[in-house]
């Protein structure tokens, strides 16, 4: 069935199955790629890491450095997070960072460790020499 109006081109499709736009998860994936960072280092559990955070106080901007061990990692494309644990003046501090956030200027990996766990929550109950992790060189 076709309709002809004045001087208009008519195109007949044999395969019309590909014509309609279907809503698929690829749409969101393609959009998230615009916001995702491509220059991130590979981060794994047990890495000792320096996170360079941008802090804005009014008009001034400064970069704050936090160093610690990655004890947890959550992979979910744009909202991927890492939990970094450090010991500040005898107090254990954990902080969760959104890895693709524009406020994180840089992540530097200092040391990799050999761990046999996906999450290192057991470090919360340990202190001092017991929290040492064996280094990995590959």
């Amino acid at each position: 069935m076709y309709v002809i109006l004045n001087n208009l081109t008519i195109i007949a499709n044999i395969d019309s199955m590909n014509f309609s736009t279907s809503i698929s998860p690829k749409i969101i994936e393609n959009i998230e790629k615009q916001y995702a960072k491509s220059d991130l280092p590979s981060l794994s559990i047990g890495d000792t890491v320096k996170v360079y955070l941008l802090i804005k106080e009014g008009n001034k901007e400064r970069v704050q450095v936090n160093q610690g061990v990655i004890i947890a990692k959550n992979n979910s494309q744009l909202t991927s997070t890492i939990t970094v644990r450090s010991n500040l003046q005898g107090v254990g501090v954990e902080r969760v960072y959104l890895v693709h956030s524009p406020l994180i200027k840089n992540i530097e990996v200092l040391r990799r460790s050999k761990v046999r766990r996906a999450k290192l929550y057991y470090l919360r109950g340990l202190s001092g020499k017991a929290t040492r992790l064996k280094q990995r060189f590959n």
Partner: protein
Amino acid sequence: MALATLWRLTARGPVQNGLAPRLGQRGVSKWAFVGRIQDATQPPPPGMTVLPNELYPYTRQTRRCGVLGRKAGMMSMIDEATGYHFGVTVVLVERCHVLMHIDHRAQNTTKRWNMQIGAGFRRPHLTKKPLRFHCAKAGVETKEKLIEFTVSDDALVPVGTRIGAEHFVVGQKVDVLGTSKGKGFQGVVKRWGFSGQPATHGSKTHRAPGSIGSFGRKGKVAKGTKMAGRMGGDSIGVFGLKIVRVDPKKSVLFIKGCIPGPNGGWVRITDSAKNYKILAATGGPYPPVPTCLEPVEDRYGSMYDDMTVDPPAEDEIALGHTQVISGADAEDFSNCHHEVAFGAEAEDMRSRRMEYIVYDNGQMDSAAQEKNDLKFQSQTDDII
């Protein structure tokens, strides 16, 4: 015409021109569709035939048309200034065109025009003929959904105009109406939030409604008592959502917050009533009235940037996978599915990765043109 004469013969005396008769009055059928009859003394507003050269001012009385979109999913965005992290719904504004102006000035209390907007795409061989010709009369492809918006006179848009994502502006607020997800037959705890009964300590019931009335209430159960039943599948409105980003090329809106319905569901997006006050205070960019005058050509809501399509090569044509038919030969279309494309849409369809037959109407000779006109004359008469 018969209806107009009947108006004057009612028992209550002559009816003035411009006033619609009461349906069910003597001589007037209850099912008469009176909405289309126009008042001849007032000319139609200028926005109906032609778009203005400049945008009209956005006033408190302005009421623009909305848009039909499809919910594509949710993602998160991070505000660069503050590091604030929030969720955002992605809505695909899928092929919205103005199909019709409906005069409801005699009917509704606001005395305004309604604009009918068609959205989506439905394969023509699956669409019923009245809808096919209704869309063809407006010069657009067959639509899947039709909705009406009540619109003020300065926000009227001529028939056939495309309304895309650029109709909305970053920072404005919108109201979103959608059909919520169906949950099926649900009990009283999930459906109404009742707390149920204790799990232990000798209790025999756990998720029952408990009492449904008292003797003092006339000894019967009041209408509207909350009970178990079908939950979901209702038209739900979420109001005052902010637009965070507009992508006109891919016809996508990023709306902050959650929207009813599943992914792929249709949602109706309109300007929020709160807009004027908020935008007047901030002096922020006002939404364009009647609509954005510089429309951006998009791939009709196609999100796949990497899906670049080449037209078929000459080898493919020779093999018979695609045929090029021109002139009066292309009369037998019985073996094919047919899509109808007009103007720019035709160019767009050529570039997609599909087998197709091209029929160029411009080269038709007069004999074939007459034959075609005769073929469709009886059908076109019906819609006029």
